[in-house]
């Protein structure tokens, strides 16, 4: 456990947050009638694509699991396939949960939970602070989604109170909060944290 690791984590997370903020502003230059609320789905897709791209780039640059011993091509392909399977499974799992929570079945096929799920996909099976932060961001985005459901019944008649929008906004806020919290949390608890591989 080194402080440099935590710093790197913090910077990558700041980049992620920056990409989310960018995804709010950039598309309005290219797309007509773009707004977060009215073309919500488009924004969501763009946002998740941004986050995924940033994560992939960071993954290649930072290489959080450089310590893995075997690096043959077949191993990589196998790992990639495994990741894909895990990704699909987690998509299915989340989908089932959301449907059981009251979502309409076909509406949920919008890959709503892309940001955290992609994150799971990218950083899967890493035993380090990266994984801790992954856990924290996933949990916090889940909690954000949950909290996002609360304003729906209120009679403020705001456009963001419609069903999926408040939840996805909550998920995004929760994700951002998780990105901020996780380095801090790891920093505060760095004494107690021990990892096998480090």
């Amino acid at each position, binding site marked *: 456990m080194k402080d440099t690791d935590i710093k790197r984590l913090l910077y990558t997370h700041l980049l992620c947050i920056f990409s989310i903020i960018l995804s709010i502003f950039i598309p309005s230059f290219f797309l007509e009638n773009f707004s977060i609320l009215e073309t919500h789905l488009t924004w969501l897709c763009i946002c998740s694509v941004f986050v995924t791209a940033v994560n992939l780039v960071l993954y290649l640059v930072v290489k959080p699991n450089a310590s893995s011993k075997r690096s043959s091509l077949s191993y990589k392909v196998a790992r990639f396939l495994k990741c894909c399977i895990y990704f699909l499974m987690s998509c299915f799992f989340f989908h089932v949960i959301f449907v059981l*929570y009251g979502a309409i079945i076909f509406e949920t096929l919008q890959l709503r939970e892309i940001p955290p799920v992609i994150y799971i996909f990218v950083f899967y099976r890493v035993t380090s602070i990266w*994984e801790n932060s992954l856990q924290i961001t996933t949990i916090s985005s889940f909690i954000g989604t949950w909290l996002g459901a609360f304003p729906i*019944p*209120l*009679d403020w008649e705001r456009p963001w109170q419609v069903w999926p929008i408040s939840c996805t906004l909550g998920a995004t806020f929760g994700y951002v909060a998780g990105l901020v919290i996780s380095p801090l949390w790891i920093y505060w608890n760095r004494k107690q*944290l021990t990892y096998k591989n480090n």
Partner: protein
Amino acid sequence: MLDCCARTGEEKETRALHAASAGRRVVFMGDDTWKDLFPGAFSQAFFFPSFNVRDLHTVDNGILEHLYPTMDSGKWDMLIAHFLGVDHCGHKYGPHHPEMAKKLSQMDQVIQGLVERLENDTLLVVIGDHGMTMTGDHGGDSELEISAALFLYSPKALFPGAPPEEPEIVPQISLVPTLALLLGLPIPFGNIGEVMAELFSEVEDAQPHSSALAQASALHLNAQQVSRFLHAYSAASQDLQITELHRLQNLFSNASADYQRLLQSPQGAEAALQTVITELQQFLRGVRALCIQSWARFSLGRMAGGAALMAAACFLCLLVSQWATSPGFCFRPFLLIPMACGLAGTIVCAGLLTTTGLKLDPVVLGAVAAVGSLLPFLWKAWAGWGSKRPLAALLPIPGPVLLFLLIRFAAFFSDSFVVAEARATPFLLGSLILLLIAQLHWEGKLLPPKLLTMPRLCFPASTGPPRHSGTYALGLGVGLLLCIRLAGLFHRCPEETPACRSSPWLSPLASMVGGRAKNLWYGACVGALVALLAVVRLWLRRYSNLKSPEPSVLFVRWGLPLMVLGTAAYWALASGADEAPPRLRALVAGASVVLPRAVAVLAASGLMLLLWRPVTVLVKATTGAPRTRTVLTPFSGPPTSQADLDYVVPQIYRHMQEEFRGRLERTRSRGPLTVAAYQLGSVYSAAMVTALTLLAFPLLLLHAERVSLVFLLLFLQSFLLLHLLAAGIPITTPGPFTVPWQAVSAWALMATQTFYSMGHQPVFPAIHWHAAFVGFPEGHGSSTWLPALLVGANTFASHLLFAVGCPLLLLWPFLCESQGPRKRWQSLGNEAEARVRPEEEEEPLMEMRLRDAPHHFNAALLQLGLKYLFVLGIQILACALAASILRRHLMVWKVFAPKFIFEAVGFIVSSVGLFLGIALVMRVDGAVSSWFRQLVLAQQR
């Protein structure tokens, strides 16, 4: 007509709906709130979005765009224009802002423009439904907020003289009768306003007599309606002052007689007419004053006292539930003595009141009893607090559950959440279930270690072996969520959300058209019944409680199918009664009376049988295990070789040994040697489940046919929830048994969720009145308690079932102990294989563990009951607080007060049900004890 300013009052609603129903052409323009309030009431409407308080102009400009063209077109009888700018401006800038001046002068111009265009037979009414405070807001009850302007104008002269300097104050409720009569419509029944008599005088006629007559007839019409209302109201409720009521009734009859006499002799004096007018006005004002006096009374002292009592009672439940299982808890000083104190206090108080000649108020007496028992308890608790108990025990509820309870508590204070509770409760329940699964995961009970791909953050890995496979608990959770989702399909919409569509499945089958769909649905309903029966029987068979020759078991085997048959037949008759051929009409009518009563009687007799012989244990007195005789091969002649000797000697030895043992046994086998009792391990829960099923069937009969699917889901999901909870509750063999808070909260949440999925809403128009006619198609005559009981049982069915079933929360973990040796149970049930007997020692004790520690068992039952009461108690506390704090809220009579009443009645039903459930468990306990005693006596003989 032109309505200025903000929100809709009830008068306008009544008026608009009334006019629309009488075929008048009503044109509306303005605030789009009206769209949801009166869908389809207007012949022409221009709605504009009104929510944004900062937007001062959209609505007003929209109206102005359409107002004059519509007026000129003449295609209207009533035109409502709801301007909103002044109200928004007040909220945003306050009354003394230049923007307000602009807005007001715009309104002035509007009125001027309208006055120029008015025709002779048109009346312009400018009203505001409220004023504003010095800051521009409203909603309270200050003088500035509740007074608004009223401006009436017509090109024809309306008033006989010049307007008075100090105009009289017209109550808002007087607009309805005035406008209704002016439009030629009947006055709505519930209105107690007074027509503005001046509007009905015919000024231009110049004949004072006819003018007075017109006024008198308008007032008489009004007074007749108010008198009818007063009559109906005083017959239904006793809260009006009797003497005043009589005085008013006399006044009305006198004035009415005078009026009739004057009509007969039209030459009567004008002075007489004037007295009639004054009398009628006196009557109307008297009625209004009387009603206001008796309706709008809030006794703040009683409200605060009641809330404090409820809070203290909740606190008591919390404390005692915490202490009940601790070893040093003694029942007498904490509970019995305070109870006695309360009782004594009540009797003394009642005696004092009667001796001093005051009226006995049951509310006061109840409050005295509660205070009298609470105070000694709290005193005792305070005294015993400091010495031994740590303060941490004050809040024993674990954090997440506390969060859920807090959310639930807070939700009662928002009218939107009360209205949306039908959707919010499944959400909370689902979250609680996911939390339970997650908790199991973190505690390491759910997944075997190799599946734990992520190492924990900083928690130490649990060392205990996983008690359940991960797929098992996950499957339970998913099944539960699925059940909740399916039950959510049965959903009745509250009135406040017009966009929502109620589920069509809540209506009875008789209302369906289309034979094929009806038959399919009927099949599904009967299928649900059979499935319910099958589930219960399967459960009983799995714990092999179906083999005993006890009468209650026989009833389960034969009586329940009979009840299913009766219910199905009744449904067939009820759904197809209109299609029956005329010859069979009498038969059908008779059967639809007899069948439900027969089912109810069957259920009642089943419950009686269960109470009489609750121990469903199969006893087999066997004389030991059958011995296996060694087969002796025939052998004759002396032994010839060593090999023969080797064979024969052991044979002879064995033979002798068996002979000897057989003789010993014969001497002992006078009494029963061993007693094999089956199903002792599930004796409590078997009785509970049987009782619940017997209760469910009559309740099911009171609902519409398709709600039987909800009952099936209810049983399924409570079984699943109990299994899931049991996976998380450790069995502490000797020690105190506890039911965790999350279990109790989930149980209470599920009761609420089922209340909604059975098609109920906590408002009075949503009560299923048809339940009163099940089994009594001709009505009840004069009796009121029976229909009230039937309707109440229909409404609070889920409260009752869940409260009675509450002890299952304690029993189920013990029941789940037998999960492992399931196979052996089945083979044990097979009587041919009695040889497995030696394994009997390893059999789980299950619920007999509870009997082994009777003290702990009683404490656990007390604790369970108190916890459930606490969870329900804070719900009703929140409802009461919301209704009293928000008593001036716009929605108090529509949302908060009905919710409080429903919750209160539900609480009473739940308490009674809880008491019954615990009493049933105690009864079974007593029966098991006596059964053991008999067994021991039989042994000794």
